[in-house]
């Protein structure tokens, strides 16, 4: 098993015919993902990459039976895409687009939650179940199938972590880039709970960063609910206070969002915290080969 997506997951692309949408949809299809079509308003009825294009999400779902959507629309249209997907009955929307306004995310995430739709992102690399299904922009080849679940706020650190894990002879069950914006969809807590239930996953890698307190909330959750071993790295230990480090949410403004605070909260509940990003894979090996 894996979490959230697998080889039979049917996926629609919102913003299917745009440059980014086309390029990455094609890459996903090459990886084996069941892309069953896409939505571009005004281009309904045409065929793109050999798949049908629809004007609305409702039509697309009725015709394809898709349960997951991959969102590539420009930032100004992200909220509308999420609301439309939620209203049409999509179960999971993966929002890759970078630059969605925070106010739009407040509204659209709250509505998605009300409708029972899960979201991942925005501003994230997406989700991949190794050697089965990739919904996002990550380089598929580095994710070998295996027993490690991975949750990360950062794109390239997701690849870095997965690559190290695979070089140590392990593999990935499912890896999720949750994004580093101030408001994001599924986060550590929900995903940790899913990995805990997943029989394929033996250990979890958690990559966090400065800003917000999701890692602190995760630590409290881990204490009560997670029995599988976790290896964690928190980026931004050397970041100055009050400076935004690339991601919209990566800024230290109080004491509870520093890397040090997060690392000690996690260590306190038994998480194997590494100080250097180069030690992620080795620590996983050390923990599992004990």
């Amino acid at each position, binding site marked *: 098993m894996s979490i959230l997506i697998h080889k039979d997951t049917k996926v629609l692309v919102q913003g299917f015919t745009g440059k980014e949408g086309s390029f990455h949809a094609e890459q996903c299809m090459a990886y084996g993902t069941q892309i069953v079509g896409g939505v571009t308003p005004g281009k309904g009825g045409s065929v793109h990459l050999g798949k049908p294009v629809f004007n609305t999400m409702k039509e697309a779902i009725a015709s394809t039976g898709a349960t997951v959507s991959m969102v590539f629309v420009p930032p100004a249209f992200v909220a509308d895409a999420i609301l439309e997907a939620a209203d049409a009955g999509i179960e999971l929307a993966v929002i890759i687009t970078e630059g969605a306004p925070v106010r739009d995310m*407040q509204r659209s995430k709250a509505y998605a939650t009300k409708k029972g739709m899960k979201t991942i992102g925005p501003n994230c690399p997406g989700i991949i179940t190794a050697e089965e299904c990739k919904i996002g*922009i990550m*380089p598929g080849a580095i994710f070998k199938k295996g027993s490690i679940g991975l949750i990360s*706020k950062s794109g390239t650190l997701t690849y*870095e972590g997965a690559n190290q894990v695979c070089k140590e002879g392990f593999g990935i069950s499912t890896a999720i880039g949750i994004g580093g914006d*101030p408001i994001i969809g599924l986060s550590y807590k929900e995903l940790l709970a899913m990995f805990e239930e997943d029989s394929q996953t033996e250990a979890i890698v958690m990559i966090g960063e400065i800003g917000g307190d999701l890692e602190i909330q995760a630590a409290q959750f881990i204490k009560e609910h997670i029995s599988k071993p976790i290896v964690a790295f928190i980026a931004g230990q050397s970041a100055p206070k009050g400076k935004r480090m690339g991601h919209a949410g990566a800024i230290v403004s109080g004491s509870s969002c520093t890397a040090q605070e997060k690392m000690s909260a996690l260590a306190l509940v038994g998480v194997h915290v590494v*100080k*250097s990003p180069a030690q992620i894979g080795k620590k996983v090996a050390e923990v599992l080969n004990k």
Partner: protein
Amino acid sequence: MNIHEYQAKEIFNRYYVSTPRGYVASSVEEAVANAQKLGGSLWVVKAQIHAGGRGLGGGVKLARSIEEVREYAQALLGMHLITHQTTAEGTLVQKLYIEEGVEIADEFYLGIVLDRAQEMPVIMASREGGMEIEKIAHETPEKIIKVTIDPFIGFQPYHGRELAFGLNLPKEEMSRFSAFAKALYEAYRENDASMVEINPLVRTKSGVFVALDGKMSFDDNALFRHPEIVAMRDYSEENPIEREASEYGLSYVKLNGNVGCMVNGAGLAMGTMDIIDYMGGEPANFLDVGGGANASTVAKGFEIILKDPNVKSIFVNIFGGIVRCDRIANGILEATKMVNVHVPVIVRLDGTNAKEAVEILKNANIKNIISATDLSDGAQKAVAAAKGALV
């Protein structure tokens, strides 16, 4: 994006958030003329810089005569104001705000930010006006009244009552305070602000609530729908190198060390700073060159990093995904032809086609380009090179 106090107050006034009357000035003569235009016998001369802590830093002066207005304007304009939020050199004062004096009966704090845990805006109010809110939150959190606003219902009368009762305001002032807070919330929401803060908010002796100070910052992702706010941007308040980088789509933050960093992805860029720190070195910067690292972005990256004279080595740490490493390696070689890179460059490429990339760099045989086998090796070599221990 941040704006000045006088600009925040312009926005406040559009929403009927009361402020004292005032005019902005860029010269001593203009400051004096503004004071005369305001009339009265008490004025406040305020340095306009983005950093907080202006009062304590000596950037806010109370003038009791036109002569004093002139004196303070002369002293403040052109000075480098140092506060706990500026650099050690301080920030050049280029504009003043001349405001009418107000008779203060009571001081409060009122601010709105996004509560990331609840994913809604939270209004914070306190009787400890004039104090730094972070300090109050840390030392006496019970003195802050917090009310979160669900965007689906907006600011309701009961939110105003919760705030007013929380502050122990007399009943007759409740509706006035509530209207003030609601107006501020609208200014925050409609302009996609990420933070708005009034510290202090005062009640005058005549019982009116007035924003004595005003601070606003905005969600950069929403600026596309607020051209009037973009027009308020003051480039002189920004680090010139950081600004130049952003014009080329690079995200750069200057730090104090001597190991330059060029990385793809914000998380890995922070991780790279951390590993340099871990290896006993000091990162000179944060630099994310983005997903599509190519010859021209890498060249621009070198140029930006080398503007910092402290840089003694550069660590290029790129994880090639969709963009293959061999193409990035060629990009780096091309970039070194475009920019004169006079410090050792340690290159760590991993991911798709990494082996081919290492071959390309090896065959090019450029003296100050050194290949690293992995992340640790690269960081170690970059730190050693900055200390002059690697030739």
